[in-house]
C-alpha cells in the first residue's frame, strides 16, 4: 500500500493492514450519526419529560428496556466465556478472537449500563444502588457485578488501545500493554467470577418473584433455578453472538479476519452448551408447571391470552433452540458458513425471546382472578433509546477495527 493513495490517517493503522479511505470512514460515521441522534433525542425526552413518553405503565413497569438489557448482557457473555476458554482453559487458537470478544463485551456492557441510566425514573439517584445497597436484592447484585465487570472489560480493552502503532511508540505505554498482557489470565479469572454471578442474578431477577407464579422458580439456597439457566443460556449464546458479529464485520470490511478453525471451536462449544441448556430448560419447565399448579395457577392460565399463546413455548425451545443445537453439533453443517450464521441468528433471537418472556410476559400474565389481561408494545422512544447504544457500539467497533490491532491473523489472511 503505497503512501500516496493511503488514507492520511494511515499512520495510526496497525502494521501491514489496509483500511478504506478516510472519507468513506467519515461517511459511514455520518450514516450512523442519524439513528444515534434519534436515540439521543429519545433519551433526553425520557430524562426531560419523565417516563410517560414511553408505553410503559403500572401493569408493565418492565418493558423493552429491561428485556433488551438482559438480552444484550446475555449476548455480551461471549467476552467472558471466550476469555475463560482462552486464558483459563487455555485453548490457544482463541487468542485470535478474544480481542474482538472483549471489544464486543465493552460495547454490550456499556449499552446495558446506558439503558439502565435511561430506564430508571431518577437517574440523578442511580448511585443509591451502591450507597444504600440491599444485599438481598438480585438487582443490587446485577448492578455491582455489571459495573465491576465493565471495569474489568475496560482493563482488558485498555492494552488494545495501547498497542496502537503510534501510542505503542511511547515506552511506558508499550511496557504497560506488555505487562497487562501478562496479567490477562488473572483479570480474565476475575471477569469470569463476576460474570458468573451477574448472568445468574439477571436470571434471579424474575426467578425470585414468588408473587408471579409464571416467573417464580424454587432454587438452591438463595438462587432460583433461573439463576443457573441464565448462566448456561448466556454462555451457550455468547460465542454465537461473537461469531455473528465477526461475520458481519468481515462482510463490512470485505476481507477475512479470523481463520475458520477458531470460529469452528467456538461454534462446537456453544452447540454442546446449548444442548445441555435445552435439556435442563425442559426439566425446569416441567418442574415449574408442577409448583405453579400447586400455587393455584394452571399451565393454561399462562398461555390463555393472546399474543402469548402456546406458540411461545414451542418457538423458544423448539425452533430457536433445537434447530441451532443440531446445526452447531453437526461438524459438516458448521463448515457451511451460511448455515452456521443462520444457527447463530436463531440462537441469539432465542435468547432474546427467553429474556422477553421472563420479564414482559411474566408481567403480562394476570395473577389476581379479577385482573384483566393488558398487552404492551414498546413505542419509538424505547426502540430508539435501546438501539442508540447499538449504534454507539457500532461506532466503537469501527474505531477499534480501524486503529487497533484487533485481529492478529488479519495480516496473514490478506497478504498485501
Amino acid at each position: 500500500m503505497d503512501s500516496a493513495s493511503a488514507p492520511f490517517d494511515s499512520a495510526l493503522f496497525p502494521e501491514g493492514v489496509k483500511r478504506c479511505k478516510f472519507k468513506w470512514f467519515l461517511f459511514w460515521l455520518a450514516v450512523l450519526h442519524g439513528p444515534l441522534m434519534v436515540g439521543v433525542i429519545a433519551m433526553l425526552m425520557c430524562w426531560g419529560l419523565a417516563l410517560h413518553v414511553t408505553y410503559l405503565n403500572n401493569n408493565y413497569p418492565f418493558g423493552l428496556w429491561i428485556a433488551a438489557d438482559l438480552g444484550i448482557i446475555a449476548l455480551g457473555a461471549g467476552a467472558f466465556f471466550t476469555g475463560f476458554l482462552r486464558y483459563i482453559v487455555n485453548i490457544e487458537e482463541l487468542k485470535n478472537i478474544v480481542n474482538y470478544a472483549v471489544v464486543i463485551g465493552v460495547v454490550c456492557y456499556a449499552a446495558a449500563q446506558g439503558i439502565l441510566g435511561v430506564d430508571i425514573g431518577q437517574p440523578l439517584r442511580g448511585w443509591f444502588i451502591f450507597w444504600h445497597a440491599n444485599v438481598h436484592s438480585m438487582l443490587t447484585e446485577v448492578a455491582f457485578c455489571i459495573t465491576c465487570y465493565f471495569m474489568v472489560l475496560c482493563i482488558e480493552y485498555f492494552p488494545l488501545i495501547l498497542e496502537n502503532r503510534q501510542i505503542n511508540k511511547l515506552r511506558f505505554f508499550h511496557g504497560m500493554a506488555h505487562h497487562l498482557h501478562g496479567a490477562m489470565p488473572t483479570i480474565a479469572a476475575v471477569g469470569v467470577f463476576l460474570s458468573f454471578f451477574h448472568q445468574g442474578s439477571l436470571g434471579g431477577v424474575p426467578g425470585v418473584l414468588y408473587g408471579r407464579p409464571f416467573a417464580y422458580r424454587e432454587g438452591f439456597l438463595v438462587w432460583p433455578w433461573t439463576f443457573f439457566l441464565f448462566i448456561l443460556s448466556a454462555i451457550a449464546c455468547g460465542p454465537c453472538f461473537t461469531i455473528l458479529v465477526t461475520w458481519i464485520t468481515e462482510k463490512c470490511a470485505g476481507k477475512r479476519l479470523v481463520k475458520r478453525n477458531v470460529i469452528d471451536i467456538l461454534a462446537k462449544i456453544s452447540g454442546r452448551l446449548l444442548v445441555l441448556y435445552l435439556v435442563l430448560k425442559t426439566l425446569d419447565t416441567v418442574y415449574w408447571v408442577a409448583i405453579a399448579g400447586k400455587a393455584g395457577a394452571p399451565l393454561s392460565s399462562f398461555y390463555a391470552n393472546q399474543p402469548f399463546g402456546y406458540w411461545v413455548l414451542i418457538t423458544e425451545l423448539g425452533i430457536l433452540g433445537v434447530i441451532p443445537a443440531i446445526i452447531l453439533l453437526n461438524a459438516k453443517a458448521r463448515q457451511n458458513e451460511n448455515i452456521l450464521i443462520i444457527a447463530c441468528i436463531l440462537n441469539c433471537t432465542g435468547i432474546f425471546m427467553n429474556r422477553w418472556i421472563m420479564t414482559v410476559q411474566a408481567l403480562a400474565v394476570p395473577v389476581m382472578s379479577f385482573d384483566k389481561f393488558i398487552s404492551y408494545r414498546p413505542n419509538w422512544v424505547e426502540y430508539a433509546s435501546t438501539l442508540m447504544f447499538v449504534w454507539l457500539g457500532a461506532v466503537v467497533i469501527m474505531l477499534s477495527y480501524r486503529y487497533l490491532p484487533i485481529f492478529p491473523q488479519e495480516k496473514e489472511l490478506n497478504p498485501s
Partner: protein
Amino acid sequence: MKLDRRTFIELAVGFSAGAGGGFMLTPVNWKLMDDMTIWSQELWPRYQLGGLKGRLPQQGKVTHADSVCNLCPGGCGITVRKVGDRATKIEGREGYPVNDGGICPLGAAGLQLLYGPWRIPSPLKRIGKRGSGNFEKISWDEAINKVVQKLGNLRQKGQSHTVACILGSDEGTVPRLFDRFLAAYGSPNFIRTASAEDTYELALGLMQGTTGSVGYDLERANFILSFGSGLIEGWGSPVRVIQAHSTWRSGDLKDRATVVQIEPRLSNTAAKADNWYPINPGTEAALALGLAHVIIKESLYNVDFIGKHTFGFEDWSDSSGKTYMGFKRLVRTEYTPEAVSKITGLPAKKILTLARAFAKAKRPVAVWGRGKGTVSGSLYECMAVHALNALTGNINKPGGVSARPQVATRSWPEVERDATAWSGSRRPRIDGAGSNRYPLTRYLPDRWSQVMNGGKAGAIQALLVHGADPYYTTLDSAAVAKAFEAIPFVVSFSTCLDETAYHADLILPNHHYLERWEDIPTPVGLQKPILGMLKPVVSPQFDTRHAGDVLMTIAKSMGGSVASAFPWDDYETLLKETMGDNWGTLEKAGYIVNEGYKPSAWSKAFGTPSGKFEFYITAFDQAGVKIGKDVGYLPHYEPVQPEGNPATYPLILIPTELMRLADGAVGNPPFCTKTLEETELKKNDLFVEVNPKTAADYGLSEGHHAMLETAKGKAKVLVHLFEGIMPGVIGIPKGLGHAAYDDYLAGKGVSANSLIGVVEDPVTGLSAAWGVRAKLTRV
C-alpha cells in the same frame, strides 16, 4: 526545552491527570453529586407547586372545625382538619345524626372546590358573546348597581312579573329571602329545580292531606322494596342511606333485612340487593298495582288500617247515589299477575312470591324516586307505590313512611306590597304552575323553557339563579339554551363557574359553603326533622359575598316597599333572629334535632277532605283538576310514552346515576372524576352500557365508537357491553358533558339531559320522562 509537540502533550496530559486526581480527592464533586440528588428530592417538587411560591406545605397548629356539607341535599355533618389557617381535609363528623362519621366521595373532595381554579374570584360582567365564557372583573358596587338599575326600570315599566328566580330548594333562610324579594318586588315566578320531591309532596298532599316532604324510617325497616331508587348511589341523603344499608347487612343472616330492587339495569343497589327484578323501563306502577292485587286477593293487607282509616278502598256511592269504583275492584280486575307480567316482563310467579314476602314482612317499606331522585316522575306511579305502603299499614309507623315537617323557625313579618307588587304577584306564572291547567303544582321547572320557546319569548326579562345550575340540570338542553338566549339579563350567584354562570351576564359570587353561615333544611328522605348550620371554617379566599347580604343590599338600594320588606341590616342578624332561641345550640353544636318527633297516630294524621287516607282522591275536584275517566281518581298505571317513534328509534335510552359522578348543580371535582371506572369514561368519550345481545344485533363491539341519536339530540359515545342491563335498553351516565369549569371537567363526555326531552305528566305538568327512544349505530 523548546515546546515541541511531544512536551506539550506530556505537559497537557500530566497537568490534566494531576488536576483530575487532585479534584477527585476533594469533597466538592462528591458533595455536588449529593446536592444534585437532594435537588431531585426536595427542590424539584417545590417548583411543581405554583401557589405556595415553591414552598412545600408547612406545618402549623392543627385545629378541627365542624360544619355541614352543602354539595347535595344530603346535608351531612363534616369536620374540617385545619393546619394553621389552611383547610387540609374534610372528614365525616362523628355523632352527627345524619351521617355519624361517614362521608361520600363528593363531600371528601370539597376542598378542591374551595381552593380550586373553578372558584369565581370577584363579581364578573360578561363581555364576549353569551357562552363565549369571557368575563371581566367589576367591583361589587358597580355589579349591584347594574342589577338594581335593571330591576328598577323593569318595575317602573310595570313588567315586574317578568323577573324570575330559579333556586335549588325552597326551604332555608336564603331561598325564603329570594321568595320574599319576589313577593315584595311583584313577581310570582319563584321556581325550584326539579326533583322527586315535587311529585312526592303532591302524592302525600292528595292521599294524606299533609304538607312537608316524605320521610323513610329505613334504619328500622326489615323489608325494603325499591322501585328504581339508587338507594346506595346517592338517593335521598347518600351517607345516611348507605349506613342504613350497612345495618341491613349486619347481624346474623336469618334476621337481616331483605332488599329488593326493581330496575331494568343492574345498578350498585341492584347488585347489593338480595333480589334484583329487572322489568321493562317505565312499568313500575303496573308492578306495584300487580303486587297490590295479590295482597288484596289473599287479604294480606292491614285490615285495621284499611278498614278504619282509608277512603275509596271499597266501591262507594256519593250523596246523589252515583256509585264509584274502589281501589280494590280496580286492582282485582285490571292488574292480575298475568296482565302485569305481560306489561312488565316479570314472570307471574315472581310477582306472587314478591307480594307475599312484602306483605308478610314485619316492617316493609316501598321506596319510590328513580336514581338519585333528580327527576320529578309520574304522579300516578308515585301514588301506586305509596298505596302499597298503605296496604301494609306502614304509614307513620317505625320502619315506614311519614310526612315529616321541618324544624320550626321564627316566621318573618308580613310583606307590605305596594300596587305594582300586588298586581305583579297576581299575574300568571311563566311556567304555568297554579294555573287552572295545573292547579296543584307549585313549580314546573322543566316547563318554563318550553313556554318561552313556544311563542312567549319576552316572558322573562331578568333571571336570578342561586344554588342551582338550570342550564345543565334541566331536561332538553337545546330548548333550555334557546330559552336562555331569549333572556336579556341573567344573574348567577354561583360560587364556581358552572354552566349557568358560564352563560350568565353577571356573576355575583357567593361564599363557598366553608366560608359562610347558613341554615341547612332537613336532608331529603330523613324521618326526623333536623336543622344543620353551615359555619365558616376558613376566611373567605376570594372577593366573594354572602348571597343573602347581596340580595338585601339590592332590595334596600331599590327603596320603597321592596326595601321595607327587609328590616334586618345584614344576613347574620336575620339568621340569628330567624333561629330564635335555637341560635345558641346551633352556633355551638351546629345542628338541632327534634328528637322527640313522632309521626302522629292514624286518627289525627290525615288532612284529606274525608279525614282518611284516600285511595280515591277527592281533592282533585275541589282543586278544579279536570280528570277524564273515573279511574283517573285512583292510582292506576298510565304508561308514560318516551319521545321518538319506535320505527326510527328502536332502542330505549335511560339515564343512569353513578355515586362517583355528581350530576346536580355542582361540577364533579377532579378527585371524583379520577375514581370513574375504565368502562365509564375514556379520555373525553363517555361509555354507554348495552346488553351484548342488543350490541350483536346492531354490530356494536366493546370499546368502539357509536352514534347515539334520540329525538332531542345526537352524540358520539363508546359502547360498553354489560350483561347487567336489559336487552333493548341503553344506559347513559348523567353528570358529564359540561362546557364550563376547566379542562379537568369541561368537554368530557356527553350530557344525558341533551338527549332526553320533557314528557309532561297529564295531572301535575311535571316531567314524567324516565327515558327516551334512541338509535345506536356503529361509527
